[in-house]
């Protein structure tokens, strides 16, 4: 499963991480949970709508901070980091794929991928080459100059995937990546995920679709903010699984 040398810390190590939204009454979006994801793993997080999947992804992606617990990314304790360092980690070690793509409409596929290298000190000379290579990796080497408005949903999501992987991040975080796609396009995107997994990328895919989750190597489920390994669903009421 993992090819990392011994002693390398896991990509994700959650220990008792929870998120409660303040208010009257406070909303517990994620109960304190443990989760470890190693290099090269392909993990699916499943659960019905409102169960806390996006909350988990935002915590993993350093877009949100847990109210309890400890989150280590590549062995770095993220709890003590200031916004500057969290931004740096996002720009370097994390690639996001969103349900609604979030491509800039006035820029070509290539320019959208180049944008991911704007803030992380990639030298301007190498940005185009890297973007072209990433687009080729998702099967869009022929659509580099296309504007998002002229592309199909599946093509747009593949541009977004190219953007997420162009920096060779430690972790690819995908939130309902096939939620806006027809089944053929979804199939193409899932094929890409398989290929990336084969290349050693670490993927965490969030989905409510069992068919999507079935493609992953490992599954965890969330129900009412409680995280559990999918193979042990009977234990959801008791708390997080190891």
């Amino acid at each position, binding site marked *: 499963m993992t090819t990392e040398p011994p002693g390398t810390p896991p990509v994700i190590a959650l220990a008792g991480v929870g998120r409660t939204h303040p208010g009257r009454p406070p909303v517990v979006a994620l109960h304190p949970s443990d989760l470890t994801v190693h290099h090269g793993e392909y993990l699916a997080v499943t659960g019905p709508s409102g169960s806390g999947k996006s909350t988990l992804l935002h915590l993993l992606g350093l*877009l949100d901070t847990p109210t309890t617990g400890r989150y280590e990314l590549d062995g770095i304790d993220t709890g003590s980091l200031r*916004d500057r360092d969290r931004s*740096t980690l996002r*720009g370097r070690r994390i690639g996001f794929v969103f349900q609604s793509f979030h491509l800039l409409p*006035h820029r070509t596929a290539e320019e959208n991928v180049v944008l991911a290298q*704007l*803030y*992380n000190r990639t030298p301007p000379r190498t940005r185009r080459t890297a973007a072209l290579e990433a687009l080729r990796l998702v099967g869009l080497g022929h659509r580099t100059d296309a504007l998002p408005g002229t592309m199909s949903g599946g093509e747009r999501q593949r541009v977004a995937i190219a*953007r997420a992987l162009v920096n060779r991040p430690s972790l690819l975080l995908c939130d309902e990546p096939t939620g806006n796609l027809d089944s053929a396009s979804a199939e193409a995107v899932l094929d890409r995920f398989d290929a990336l997994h084969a290349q050693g990328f670490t993927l965490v895919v969030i989905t409510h679709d069992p068919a999507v989750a079935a493609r992953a190597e490992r599954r965890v489920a969330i129900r009412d903010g409680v995280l559990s390994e999918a193979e042990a669903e009977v234990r959801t009421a008791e708390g997080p699984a190891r």
Partner: protein
Amino acid sequence: MSRRSVLPEPSSRLGLRDLLSEALSGVLQRPGRSVLTMLGTVLGIGAFVAVLGLTATASGQIGEQFSLTRATTVDVTDRPRTDGVAPGANPPSNFPEDTDRRLAAIDGVRAGGVWWPVPGAPVITARPNGPNEGTGLSVLAATPGAVAAMEPTLAAGVTMDAFVQRTAQPVVLLSEAAAGRLGVSRLDAQPAVFLDNVPYTVIGIYSDVRRRPGALLGLVIPASTALERYGNPAPQPDRGAQGLVATRVGAASVVAAQIPLALRPDAPDAFTVVPPPDPHSLQDGVTSDLTGLFLALAGICLLVGAVGIANTTLVAVLERTEEIGLRRSLGARTGHIAAQFLTESTALGTLGGLIGTSLGVVTVVAVAAARDWTAVLQPAATLPAPLIGTVVGLLAGLYPALRAARTDPLKALRSA
């Protein structure tokens, strides 16, 4: 920056070139809106440059018209009495015989006297009964004070003095034009020219005069001689006796007020005195009233321009929350987001400033050309004008940039 990062990798950053190109693409993304946004700044800065340029141009124009000579010249026109004069004869002028002395006694007068065109158009010849050379030449009668006030430049000989006036000598001063016409070039043989066949000894030739340039096409004989030979000056104001006074700089209006009483204490109404216009009243009139008004209008335009840029940038921030969230997910810090929108508004302001300055300069040049003026643009007011647009854009972008930086990436990414 105070504490070192604990991460092994260098922090996120946004290079200057990347910042500029991102801001530019933000401006060009909606060209029509950008142009409308700049309109207020364009108008404000255009008005600013045009007003300052037109003021400078108009002032320069006044300065040109209002030369030093004009500022030190006072004209006195005679109003001769026409009653009780035999028909056919000219009435005596109101100027007293000792006009030169009375004028010279006024504080601030450098020289002054009376002159008039000799009535009856004498025939001018180089020798007795020779052909008339006088076409286009005029014979002037003048007191020595009037000649001094004209400030002739002598090419040869001497000018008129009190002696020739007192003794009514038959002498003449020639302009270079008259001397050429009459074949007079050297004065050592005491040449003479003839007026109505009467010889006049040429005592001097002048090449230029500072006042009464009409004398450059003429001959000047002593006023006393002219009175003896040709009688009183014509009564018409434009052909009659006139006083000419050269004053010291700044004394003209004070001198003008004193002239009528000094010449004729018994009849001060006998003269019309025309002092030069006061340069200060002219310039102040142009600069203070209009400039103040137009600069206030330019300021209002700039304010409107600033509000326009602030408004558009704020709308852009609200429209582009999704983009802001995306950039944050790609590693942008809050400062990078603020810098991007601040640079966009500053670019809009600078561009508006450049266009406005160009339009202002074109306006000044066009108005000056239409009026035959010399366009005057002060570099100190024109060159920094685009920078006013930069400052306007920068200030206008502060609040929107702050709002952009504060956008919660979570909400921004969830919105779409």
